[in-house]
């Protein structure tokens, strides 16, 4: 069965520090993986998808099939990165993790 696990409910880092939000998945095929973000008082929106292999707002995410992980990383956190982050898998139905609330401390 498909499952997306985000082990951290809450994560706090200082501004300028590196940040990594963890995501592990279980899926027998080749997954399509995404990161969605929800800023305060805004709707949930796509941050990035693994097939694009792009960096959005300084964030990157690498698919590691061996470890079945899709961690989201940013080398230098900014205050505006404070938000709720959801990892998602699509097959094509979308499965979301429980989310990680990131707080960047000034």
């Amino acid at each position, binding site marked *: 069965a498909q499952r997306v696990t985000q082990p951290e*409910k809450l994560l706090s880092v200082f501004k300028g520090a590196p940040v990594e939000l963890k995501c592990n998945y279980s899926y027998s095929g080749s997954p*399509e993986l*995404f990161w*969605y973000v929800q800023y305060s008082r*805004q*709707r*949930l*929106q*796509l941050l990035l*998808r693994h*097939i694009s292999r792009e960096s959005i707002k300084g964030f990157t995410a690498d698919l590691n099939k061996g470890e079945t992980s899709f961690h989201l990383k940013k080398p230098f956190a900014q205050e505006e990165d404070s938000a709720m982050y*959801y990892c*998602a898998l*699509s*097959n*094509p*139905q*979308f*499965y*979301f*993790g*429980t*989310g990680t609330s990131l707080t960047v401390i000034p």
Partner: protein
Amino acid sequence: EAGVTQSPTHLIKTRGQQATLRCPPISGHTSVYWYQQALGLGLQFLLWYDEGEERNRGNFPPRFSGRQFPNYSSELNVNALELEDSALYLCASSLIGRNTGELFFGEGSRLTVL
């Protein structure tokens, strides 16, 4: 920013009543997803409609139901409301139903059950 426009934005009901939430997808989108976002529980999958058919439903009781109309707009109905149904209900639409594609979310309908 792009997204669906859910209605109503807020809804207050009492236990035992019924609630109906609406979600018109973005023009051209044929897939609609419904999620429940309760405090501390993340996104719980409710229903997925694609081209008028229910493709899958999550682990919710049968009093949660819905439908998708020929114009791909969707309704979520919750019967016999219980206090724990109080949550934000999110709808999202997608252009591609059978392959992966970006989900465009609405701002949600806040349901409060008293």
